[in-house]
């Protein structure tokens, strides 16, 4: 596939100019977005929210067995 250079260059300059000429509130909001995404993906996801079944088991067969065991052997906790 042939890359349309003028279009790509226009696209890059579109975003470059957009970010460069951003208003004060826009810059502030972008800073908040970056901090927020860092907290969500780099801190919360990695350290606080591992996928329980993926961490505990190696494959789907083990995960199925575990959940099936919970569904068939459970005595529910009191509310």
């Amino acid at each position, binding site marked *: 596939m042939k890359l349309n250079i003028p279009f790509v260059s226009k696209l890059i300059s*579109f*975003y470059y*100019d*957009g*970010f460069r000429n951003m*208003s004060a*509130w*826009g810059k*502030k*909001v*972008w800073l*908040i*977005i970056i901090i*927020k*995404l860092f*907290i*969500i993906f780099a801190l*919360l*996801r990695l350290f*606080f*929210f*591992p*996928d*329980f*079944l*993926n961490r505990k088991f190696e494959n*789907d067969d083990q*995960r*199925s067995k575990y*959940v*099936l*065991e*919970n*569904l*068939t*052997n*459970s*005595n*529910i*906790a*009191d*509310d």
Partner: protein
Amino acid sequence: MIEHIDVSVVDWSRAQFALTAIYHWIFVPLTLGLSFIIAMMETIYVRTGMEEWKKLTKFWMTLFGINFAIGIATGIILEFEFGTNWSNYSWFVGDIFGAPLAIEGILAFFLESTFVAVMFFGWNKVSKKFHLISTWLVAIGANLSALWILVANAWMQNPVGMVFNPDTARNEMVNFWAILFNPVAVDKFLHTIFSGFLLASIFVLGVSAWFMLKNREEWLSKRSILIAAVFGLASSLMVAFTGDSSARTIAEVQPVKFAAFEAYYDGSKNAELVAFGILKNSDKQIGDKKVKDFVFRIGIPGFLSVMTKGDKDAYVPGLNQLVIEGSDKGEYLSISQKMERGREARNALIKYKRAKMLNDKVEADVLLNEYFRNKKFNEDYFRYFGYAFLKAPEDAIPNVSVSFYSFHLMVILGFLFIVVCALSLLMLVRGTLMNNRWFLRIILISVPLVYIASESGWVLAEMGRQPWIIQDLMPVNVAVSQISAGSVMATFILFAVLFTALLIAEVSIMVKQIKTGPKQ
């Protein structure tokens, strides 16, 4: 296994999910509605060529941008929580959420995020028409995003279009269209987006009223009020219409929830709808569970019968009938009967699991055919699987007070907003709005109230369906992961701090921009 699960894990996980969802929902409805209001304003600008309309569009676009940016990705945390705190549920749901959420990601999110850039960076870079199309596409994309999330939520309220696979312990989608056109999904989507339109309209009215109170931006305020009042009035009527349809669907697919949000205990013909009421502790009981009863109420006789069955003489069962007594005519099962069926379904699963463990393929095949591949078994027994986990029928009753007050608060405020929108329009047309300072203040006060109404709707939807995470199939305490309550509590506090900081940031940046007003 589950018997070792600490109840506080369930409570903290629920509290954490509620906190995240409530905060996330602060940002979403304004995006849904304001995007359309901006698109309408820009359409007028493109058609008339008047620079004032461009200025007006850009002002509201700034507020939209702040809300959009602060709110973005707050919903992703809910997905993290599914995997960590609700692992049994996540596994059991299987691929049901996969398709709707994948469509949401690919279609709606990219549509939205691509054209947001054109909306903000493209004013002098692309043609007026292309910019306008981008604005409309952002509005459509945002609302399409909501569609897929609401389809997933509706499936939890009324699971359809799937079969349970006992080998994998997962549900498998067999009918995508049944899931998409689930009556709960249709009602929920329409009710939610119209409520988002209404919330945004009240927001625009509120900010414009503030300008009028300050004797500023008269041209902007009047034009904004005109659009917001018309859009808000139409939306508020649609909210009432879809709310009525939604209630009728709930009465059919979640009758216990319906009876709970009406605090309707004893079934009758010519059933009364409570327009307003106050509940207090009483000796009244449903089975062994004490429930609150009315100390005061204003009711409309026959209205509940009309609302649910279209006939004022129709019989509407109350919590007593739905939970304890059941139907003499076999129209519905009591919770005890559902518990029996749920236990039979679970026993079938136990037998199948045992046959597989013993490698008895013949027996496993027989059980598969007799139960899990048998349509009648799935429709009459497995659909009540979750009831096997209840200890007593009363466990199926949600918190009546929370359900009742959240429902009635939402409805009362909903009617208030119809009046606010209608009067705003009327006074604007008559030219009396700017001098009616008391009414401008009421509009201003309506802004926090519309957020309360919007959140109340979700409190009702989610608290009213307790104890279920998936209606009739899985209660919350079976869905939860075996993790420590302490870790959930810690992340709860972390979220509370993070979201509060985000909310403060949003409000302060927004207030500053509103005070600054539209730029030349």
